């Protein structure tokens, strides 16, 4: 039930989220000469995940640029290029490496427009990842969206479907502000219906992925599919769950979250970042304050365990929110535990 596109799709077909990302980049690279991609192994390799495969063949190494392993450097270069007429898409291979670019992102990109009284603009997109369960251990499995969402001047996008990924990435590239676009590595293979024609998805508009009456499940990125799966199970048990995907953390569609929670009277927020001081805290606080008089139960938060992500499968699987955990929390909220 994704919101209708600006221009109506001529036809529909199923592609993966990785293909949707690739298409969005290709289309924007075609329509705007100032767009370019820079990152480690993005050209011939098409990234280690092959998400950008084929782009260098069409656009050449001048626009799909392999860089040294210098995350801070390429982000800084992107900021300067963006200030002077280009639209860089900086590829940061793993979200864990945001640790290396926070100065260029938070102190430079995010603040230049404001500090200059509106004179400088930084139309930069930083694409990176989130998500665990790939057995990649503590430095390749983090979901650090809370850090960037905390910084005024940055827009933060977390797509959960191929359709959203394409429409949101095209909007991100056309946005005149720095946008951090975060994809779950586990979602790249996920397929979904994507129209052939061009469409854009505006920021700040949440999408109700499934309607329901008894409990609201707010999920971000891959947690949306976890919530949808939980909703299926709950439906069988007679609990009608509504699944809401904010799609962008900033701007955040607070009204959609509050309205849904006010309607159902119960809410669970699910994000793969660490639970403490994470995205679930903001979403829960917004709902608890905004829907205060309509809530029949406290808002529940499900995030990653507050531990570094362990390597061993038996341990790593304990750290992430699961369908069963979400369903159990919903049952409890609905007094069916």
């Amino acid at each position: 039930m994704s919101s209708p596109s600006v221009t109506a799709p001529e036809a529909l077909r199923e592609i993966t989220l990785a293909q949707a990302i690739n298409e969005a980049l290709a289309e924007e690279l075609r329509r705007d000469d100032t767009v370019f991609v820079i990152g480690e192994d993005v050209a011939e390799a098409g990234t280690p995940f092959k998400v950008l495969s084929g782009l260098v063949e069409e656009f050449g190494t001048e626009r799909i640029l392999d860089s040294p392993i210098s995350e801070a450097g390429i982000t800084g270069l992107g900021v300067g290029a963006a200030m002077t007429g280009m639209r860089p898409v900086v590829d940061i291979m793993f979200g864990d490496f945001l640790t290396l670019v926070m100065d260029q992102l938070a102190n430079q990109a995010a603040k230049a427009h404001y500090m200059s009284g509106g004179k400088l603009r930084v139309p930069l997109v930083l694409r990176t990842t989130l998500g665990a369960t790939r057995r990649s251990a503590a430095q390749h499995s983090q979901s650090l969206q809370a850090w960037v969402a905390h910084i005024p001047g940055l827009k933060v996008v977390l797509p959960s479907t191929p359709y959203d990924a394409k429409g949101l990435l095209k909007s991100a590239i056309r946005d005149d502000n720095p946008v951090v676009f975060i994809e779950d590595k586990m979602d790249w293979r996920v397929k979904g219906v994507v129209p052939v024609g061009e469409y854009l998805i505006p920021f700040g508009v949440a999408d109700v992925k499934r309607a329901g009456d008894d409990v609201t499940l707010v999920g971000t990125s891959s947690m949306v599919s976890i919530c949808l799966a939980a909703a299926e199970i709950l439906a069988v048990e007679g609990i009608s769950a509504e699944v809401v995907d904010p799609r962008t953390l900033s701007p955040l569609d607070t009204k959609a979250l509050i309205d849904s929670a006010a309607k159902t009277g119960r809410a669970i927020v699910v994000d793969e970042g660490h639970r403490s001081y994470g995205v679930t805290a903001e979403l829960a606080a917004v709902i608890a304050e905004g829907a205060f008089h309509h809530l029949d139960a406290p808002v529940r938060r499900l995030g990653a365990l507050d531990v570094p992500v362990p390597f061993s499968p038996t341990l790593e699987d304990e750290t992430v929110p699961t369908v069963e955990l979400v369903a159990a929390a919903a049952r409890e909220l609905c007094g069916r535990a």
Partner: protein
Amino acid sequence: MSTAEQFTSGAAPAADLSLAMYRDMATIRCFEEQVNELYRGAKMPGLAHLYNGEEAVAVGVCSALRRDDYITSTHRGHGHCLAKGADVALMFAELLGREPGYCRGKGGSMHIADHANGNLGANAIVGGSTGIATGAAFSAKRRGTDQVAVCFFGDGALGQGLLYEVMNMASLWRLPVIYVCENNLYNEYTHYLESTAGSILDRPKAFGIESREVDGQDVRAVHAVTSELVTRARNGEGPAFLLCNTYRYHGHHVGDVDRGYYRSKDEEQLWLSERDPLVLHGRWLREQGLADDDALRAIDDEVRAVVERGAAFALDAPFPEPGEVTEDVFA
């Protein structure tokens, strides 16, 4: 210094340019003294890092640039901003946090940007603008213009890893960027020799970057070597690094008045009396018969008048409306 002498002994710049450089240096000197006054008179919010003593670097470099060339600046950026063509009154307005300021009062001394003149902004993060300058050069090359970007930074920025990351890319991709290191001997209150191992010039050289050293108190030498490096860059011959040896007369910032524990009065006196860029250039202008005492005094007087008018304008200018605080977060 050999490079420096080589250029001073070389072809002298045209008369009008030589006088313009004197005027620009005098403007910076006078502007900064006024800033200090405003601070001491409690009329300026916060602090400011004065450029007095280093005028020949900003003026020598920027006089070799076009208006559409880019610069990135530092926390000690008033000189760069003025040398690149900024208006004195609008700068004062920004320093005092007033509405007509370059950044509507939102940036202040450490964040003045003057996009119209190619100044992409001062920066309060040491080394923080090295990526921005490199990116501006990347952009110029991609867009097929022959613009160059100059990155000003202090000796302290040599401690920031980002500088080496971007110099590597600038060299790999032959970007038209010139890294101008203003070595005024101190990172804040620590002598640069205590924080800088090996050889400064060998660092950019190791990345394959054309590297030069110049007497930062000799405005004509700075202009000459910069012109040469700018020509290289415009011709696609790639990046360069220019080490300018200079000195700041005032404290690290306006509040740094007791400096005895990190540098001697004698050292300060020596630079003031022997190496002052305005005195040295003024003497040369007289020797060359390009200006006599009256002519120079006339320039000084004009400059003072401009600065006083600018400060007066700023002091009378309104502060931003509180409601503006939420504007300009997003474009």
